[in-house]
């Protein structure tokens, strides 16, 4: 019985999940512009107990054009960049929340940092591209459109702000940009004329243009445009050291005269580059370095301070020193070993 109950419960949960997945979102943008909405009233009544013909009256009005672009960023936080590389992307979505097909011109504008930090540098070669080939992420040469053409009501498209990050930016430097989408008239291929709001209360002739957009970081409310900001942050590189020790002499006991081999594994994470990494490890007290046992990535290093990467008791007295140079997260793990005898 218990098992049956569990199966039923599982099936029920699965059904609930399915229902949640298949539920269609409500149509946000609404009744298309130009639709006539009528309100009709019909009255029936009796005179002298005999029913009379029904009387009807109608009122109607035309739905005007709602212009309501919504720009959001899909970056949940800073886009981590290293100093130097070209064409780094901030990613946005532009949604047509209006009730007619629109074109949108696009621009990148300097903005305050939306993630709470302080914008303190500008990218170079800042451009805006629309996702064109349907493959997620910016592909140079494929995502080439610079404006949004014929975005139907309720539809959304992905837009990238691309910038080159200047070399020499320091870790944690921030460059924030807003994507500004401005409504242009749809209806034909190519960027249509700038959509203008109908002045005054109502033209009474045909469909009025009504701006219904919210304010964004680079635009005001009801101006036919909307914006959202995202930001680049220069990421440093984190160097991680993992040191282990093994007694390698007979008996495997850390007794006087025993030999211990130390292994130090060096890895780098983060978007940046750790420049000129030098590992320095003091030889433990009450131990003596075993000459000729210093290795880097299985290659023997001389103990002397010379042209190879390591030395013992040279660069720093009483310590093992290994110079690893520039490392980043793509670099292989750097493994240093050396042996000591317990005095």
């Amino acid at each position, binding site marked *: 019985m218990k098992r049956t109950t569990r199966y039923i419960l599982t099936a029920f949960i699965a059904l609930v999940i399915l229902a949640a997945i298949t539920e269609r979102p409500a149509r946000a943008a609404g009744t298309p512009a130009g639709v006539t909405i009528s309100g009709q009233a019909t009255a029936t009544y009796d*005179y002298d107990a005999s029913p009379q013909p029904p009387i009807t009256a109608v009122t109607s009005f035309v739905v005007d054009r709602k212009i309501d672009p919504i720009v959001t960023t899909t970056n949940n936080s800073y886009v981590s960049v290293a100093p130097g590389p070209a064409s780094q992307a901030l990613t946005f979505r532009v949604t047509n929340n209006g009730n007619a097909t629109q074109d949108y011109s696009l621009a990148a504008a300097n903005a305050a940092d939306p993630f709470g930090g302080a914008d303190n540098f500008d990218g170079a070669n800042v451009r805006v591209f629309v996702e064109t080939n349907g493959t997620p992420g910016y592909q140079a040469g494929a995502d080439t459109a610079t404006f949004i053409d014929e975005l139907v009501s309720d539809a959304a498209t992905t837009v990238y702000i691309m910038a080159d990050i200047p070399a020499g930016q320091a870790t944690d430097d921030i460059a924030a940009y807003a994507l500004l989408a401005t409504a242009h008239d749809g209806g034909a291929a190519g960027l249509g004329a700038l959509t203008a709001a109908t002045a005054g209360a109502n033209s009474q002739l045909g469909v009025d243009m009504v701006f219904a957009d919210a304010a964004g970081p680079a635009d005001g409310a009801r101006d036919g445009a909307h914006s959202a900001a995202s930001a680049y942050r220069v990421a440093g590189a984190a160097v991680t050291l993992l040191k282990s020790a093994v007694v390698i002499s007979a008996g495997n006991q850390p007794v006087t005269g025993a030999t211990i081999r130390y292994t130090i594994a060096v890895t780098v994470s983060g978007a940046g580059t750790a420049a000129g990494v030098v590992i320095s490890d003091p030889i433990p007290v009450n131990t003596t370095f075993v000459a000729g046992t210093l290795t880097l990535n299985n290659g023997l290093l001389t103990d002397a301070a010379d042209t190879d990467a390591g030395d013992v008791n040279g660069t720093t007295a009483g310590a093992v020193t290994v110079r690893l140079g520039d490392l980043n997260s793509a670099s292989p793990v750097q493994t240093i070993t050396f042996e000591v005898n317990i005095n």
Partner: protein
Amino acid sequence: MTTKTVVSMVLVVLLLPMTAAAQKKGSIELRSISEVEVATTNAKGEKEVKRVDAAASKVIPGDVVIFTTQYANVDKKPAENVVIINPVSEHVVYVENSAEGPGMKIEFSVDQGKRYAAPDKLVKTDAKGVSRRAAAREYTHIRWTLGKPLAPGGKGSVSFRARVK
């Protein structure tokens, strides 16, 4: 013949054509109005909400429109069993608790006017036969029933609000 009888006969003769004329042009007059509320600032700098003809105003999806039906008995006799029905347009959604009509019983339909009931008695039944209380957004028609005869010259209005889809 006395003088009194002559006066009565003349009165009857005079009344007959008047009654006929009134019946010909209809005895109840209806007027439908659709309006939106517009917030304005008056000359004193106070905020006011004005009702403006929806056709002479900007109306976009999400806006609330007030549909009003004015009725009047323009005949000389009371009208009985006065019932007014407003279909809710497919492009709008009824705003819950917005129907008003002094002295009227207000009922709703969720099946294109086949049956009417008070909101707490309206049910929707799905394909599996499971019933639930109907939501205001599912109302297709609104019916107002005047509880007593509408006297000659009597008039009133009923209204409801609906949000443009």
